[in-house]
């Protein structure tokens, strides 16, 4: 049986554009999973309200995949959807629990459309394609400038990330995964923590995180 060689990579770690001081703090973390890894994770500092900058946008479609597994914006952000594929696609969200619905209709090859983030801060909405149900991506509404998006795609059991340029008074970490329990905790300068990653009362992995 063939073994698919997967490669771990961190898609985006940002906030470097707001790193005015070399002395600003930095968070570094390592995810370790015991078996299957999540599709994606979002780590951000929830008590920072300086406003998210859209990253990894626009959300494009090519080779029957979304260009990013997760993009972020804040309340009112326009998300630009594109179809760079050679076949028709669609983008929709149907979050019945939060009452969030949109559907951009048919996106023929080369076309674009937009949707606005108008749901509550901190909520992540799954989007998909009605023609190709295997396709999925997520859009997060956060208001923080300090965040990292981690795409897990590796047989390597460990995946690392950093968030730099942190002011000392921003401390509340939120870690979001699809289908896993979110983590929420305070991490001050000099702290280190090991957090269990849980789904349905079962431990799937661990986050080892520290701040300097």
């Amino acid at each position: 049986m063939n073994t698919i060689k997967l490669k771990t990579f961190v898609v985006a770690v940002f906030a470097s554009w707001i790193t005015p001081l070399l002395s600003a703090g930095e968070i570094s973390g390592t995810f370790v999973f015991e078996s299957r890894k999540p599709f994606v994770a979002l780590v951000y500092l929830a008590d920072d309200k300086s406003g998210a900058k859209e990253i990894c946008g626009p959300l494009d479609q090519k080779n029957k995949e979304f260009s990013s597994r997760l993009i972020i914006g804040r309340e009112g952000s326009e998300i630009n959807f594109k179809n760079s594929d050679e076949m028709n696609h669609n983008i929709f969200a149907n979050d019945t629990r939060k009452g969030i619905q949109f559907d951009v209709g048919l996106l023929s090859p080369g076309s674009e459309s937009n949707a606005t983030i108008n749901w509550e801060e901190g909520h992540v909405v799954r989007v998909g394609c009605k023609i190709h149900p295997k396709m999925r991506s997520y859009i997060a509404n956060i208001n923080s400038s300090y965040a990292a998006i981690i795409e897990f795609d590796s047989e390597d059991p460990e995946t690392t990330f950093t968030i730099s340029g942190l002011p000392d008074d921003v401390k509340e970490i939120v870690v979001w995964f699809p289908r896993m329990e979110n983590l929420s905790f305070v991490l001050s300068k000099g702290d280190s923590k090991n957090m269990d990653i849980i789904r349905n009362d079962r431990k799937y992995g661990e986050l080892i995180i520290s701040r300097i």
Partner: protein
Amino acid sequence: MTPKRFLLTLFALSGALHSPPLPVLFAGDQGYREIAEKHFSVPDTFDIEYPDDLEPSEEVVELGSMLFFDNRLSFNESQSCATCHNPDHGLSDGIRFSLGATGKPVERNTPHLYNLAWNQVFFWDGRAASLEEQALAPIEAEAEMNMPIDILVDRLKSISGYREVFEKAYGDDSITPDRIAAALASFQREIIVDNTPFDSYLNGNDNAISLAAKRGMALFVDKAACIKCHDGANFTDNSFHNIGLKSEDIGRKAIVDIPILNKAFKVPGLRNILFSAPYMHDGSIGTLEEVVRFYNRGGDDTENISSLIKPLHLNEDEIRDLVAFLGAINKPLEIPRPNLPEPNSIKFVTKK
């Protein structure tokens, strides 16, 4: 099997037979291998998404096998899941529209069950999002097994052998719809075809498939562009398309009401497709060769047809090569019949 179908089957299978040893590597062999390695793979069980990421125990799978083959899952005890999904007929039943427990034909062709462990959506119209969700629907459907789930639960509870098997599988003898669905789904996830001649070719055996099948593989990717929908290790992207059949069935549109999905149906996986004729959601095409000819002419009804369906301009040799390739992705799968729990009492239940 009719003589014509026998000959076509024989021809398709010939794609899976070893080519005569070649004195030197055929000039195109490296090219074919590059195509194969770029576009195809052997199914990887690591990629199966089990509920809660937990593989079922052997006991749960065994229970699922018993339920799958047990006629008592239909109200009048005339049919099991295996009646229509017969392992001896490609996990289908060889007829256009299966007959339900009451003898009436159902409205769509019975799909095969190979490699559903990797599937995203189920039924021709994709109305179930998991095998667990799918499992009980044909049992309860009046046109199929016609069995109200509460009566099924009572019936299984009345059989001491089933109480014992449920206890072995789940730790206690509670019999619930969720456990029935989970066991059936767990059994179906074990129906895996990953050792076809084409898999052997992918694993490095250049002579595992014929030259015709290799040419067919190249056509599958390029000129015929089958791979635009039949991609990945299981030859499906789980998408929905109106492929241009003359049919009044609105298909996926009944589930997702957008115009492009009118008369669109799920792209089926192609592993062991040779064994599950007839083909398409309406069972209207009897052989793989006819299927290729249908796509070659760009479908029969162009209204709202998918933009991916266009005349292919394949010549007769190319049609045969494509069929040869489709013949190389099959491997008969033996599914042993389990010993079923004996009835310990006769109990008649009146349907509410």
